[in-house]
């Protein structure tokens, strides 16, 4: 089971650089990294998939992330029940004659067609990695012109708390001190 980390960081420019630099410096492998804003103002949430499977090594990665001053919390969700999703945009070469075949496939996978050109289609698909790989395989014969996959995003199922919230009990609305827009 590959390690999946959900990381809450202060939303300050340069934070992603610090995280990436840490992985390079410690010779940890990043398989995918996704970052975006989250429900806490002035904070961002990352999902990082590492190549590490062994428990103690996984803990070292987590502890090294926690050492970064701008990292608020790190949750190793590898062994927790989680929803883990990937997202992909797939541009395929297809003219009017075979469009119907593609649309059948797209329906079966509960994917969507988000752009139609004279000789192209863009398919949008969300799901587990295996589902994405499967639809890619089936679309391959049509001719894939471009493939753009985002990394995994993860969330613990049920009442599993989002990391960081429990660390911010005293803050109004769980808000962090606002970073100066100019500070890097």
């Amino acid at each position: 089971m590959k390690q999946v980390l959900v990381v809450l960081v202060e939303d300050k420019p340069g934070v992603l650089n610090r995280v990436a630099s840490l992985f390079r410096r410690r010779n940890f492998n990043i398989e995918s990294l996704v970052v975006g804003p989250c429900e806490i103002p002035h904070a961002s949430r990352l999902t990082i998939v590492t190549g590490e499977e062994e428990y103690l090594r996984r803990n070292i990665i987590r502890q090294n992330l926690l050492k970064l001053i701008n990292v608020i919390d790190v949750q190793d969700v590898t062994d927790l029940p989680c929803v883990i999703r990937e997202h992909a945009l797939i541009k395929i070469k297809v003219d009017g004659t075979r469009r119907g075949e593609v649309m059948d496939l797209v329906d079966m996978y509960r994917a969507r067609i988000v752009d139609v050109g004279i000789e192209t289609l863009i398919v949008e698909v969300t799901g587990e990695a295996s589902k994405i790989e499967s639809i890619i395989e089936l679309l391959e014969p049509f001719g894939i012109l471009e493939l753009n996959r985002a990394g995994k995003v993860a969330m613990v199922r049920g009442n599993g708390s989002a990391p960081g919230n429990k660390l911010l009990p005293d803050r109004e609305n769980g808000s962090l001190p606002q970073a100066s827009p100019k500070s890097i």
Partner: protein
Amino acid sequence: MGKSKRELTGAEIIWESLVREGVEVIFGYPGGAILPAYDALNKYRKKIHHVLVRHEQGAAHMADGYARASGKVGVAIATSGPGATNLITGLATAMMDSSPIVCITGQVGSTAIGSDAFQETDITGATLPVTKHSYLVMDVDDLAESIREAFYIARTGRPGPVLIDIPKDVQTAKTVFEYPTAPIDLPGYHPPECATDEQVAAALELINTAERPVILAGQGVLQSHAMGPLRELAEQGQIPVTPTLLGIGSLPASHPLNLGMMGMHGTGAANHAIQAADLLIACGMRFDDRVTGKLQTYSPNSKKIHIDIDASELNKNIRVEVAIHANLSTVLKQFNGGVKPRNHNDWMATIKTWQDDADEREVLNMKTPTLLGAQAVRAIWEGTQGKALIVTDVGQHQMLEAQYYLHDEPYTLITSGGAGTMGFALPAAIGAAFHETDREIWVIVGDGGIQMNIQELATAVQEQSNIKIAIINNGYLGMVRQWQQMFYDARYVETPISSPDYLLIAQAYGMPGYRVDRLEDIPATMQKAQSHEGPVLVEFMVEQHDVVYPMVPAGADLHAMIRRPLKQFEMDT
């Protein structure tokens, strides 16, 4: 905004903030991008003494030496570009040895950042892996808080270097200055304090049932002021103690439970005891490869308790049964109520046999045709009654110092351990001298290392630093030569190194200089050096081909030590 509040420039805010952080001395070198700060320094000279270094690397090492001697944060300041990059070796040294320093650098104007302007370097980017944290302050309103946070981060938790990069226009911009007083709010930074009851119970169970325990005392003992609780633990449980290089001083060297340093050039007793132990109590140390030897065969039959303030060190190199992420001093106090009195007579008797074996090989008991480095270091110990603050460089002399200068007091050895930075000793001693004004200070440095930051002799003379500089000259990069002798069939590639005439060097810089090459002449020469206030240089001409024993070859089993041959020299009876 009330008119009564003062508007200051960023440059003035730098100094006002440093004054509020208790800074009394700063080591630096001016240049274009830091000029506004230097101009403002003129108004603060009565509160902060600026030391003009001769190379920015010296400034970082001086701040480091000052920090290690005082326990306070050391501060260096430099300009952008090359001034900033010259600090990097000093930052890396401080990072590896967890030394609290703050380095302030000027940066090109904020609108010019990214344009490859004159003397522009992305110094926060370049120093990312060798700093605990860093700031690029783009708004003068953030400056005071950034400086305050930098000092807080540098000195708390596992200490370390913090860099603050300040663009020139931020130094000239004005704002109302109020030094923040609210508790520092860093949502992702919470240094730990104590162990849990379960951890204490698990550790005590191991301690109270162990038959062959050993305490490994690292720098964390000194940094958390845990000498008292450590000694109590050792004496109560009759547990022998071995320090790491940076842990020297955590228990007096003359204490009967002190086995001497562990590791690659550690004592036979310490290394054998670690290998034969059934319990290791690792206190504020990190199982560096220079102390473990081959990890797979390291202390194979022991349970291990590891206490460290940095959770990422726990289970990093060595797997342990009880890992405690906490302040060492607090944890040892938590232990100490529950440690049962023991004697471990059999264990101590076994250790004694290893110590006796070392005595038979002790070179100080032999008659040697030439002066050896070991004898020179022991003579310096005698000539200073063992009470000096010693600052060493890196190499054979450094290991000989650790073996032959017996430190009975804490905080009396400053050395570059983790990074192994040659050129460290002289500037670090100059920095330390600003704190240790009463204690005698000796630099012990090789003929290679002294030439690596020799320009700081000018700083030592200018500041009249009261340091005695012992150059242990063997005409070689001795430790590298030793490896070539042992592991590269004695092919001495580029290790013979020439030196200038150090007496002329001393004269040129304006300090007394002496040379000594016979053991019996050392006391008189040292007395001459000690009778001068201010810097003095003493060159010790030592045997070129001696090596440091014992030695665990890199990557070998810790007990597989190369020992000094039994009859290398005639015993001096």
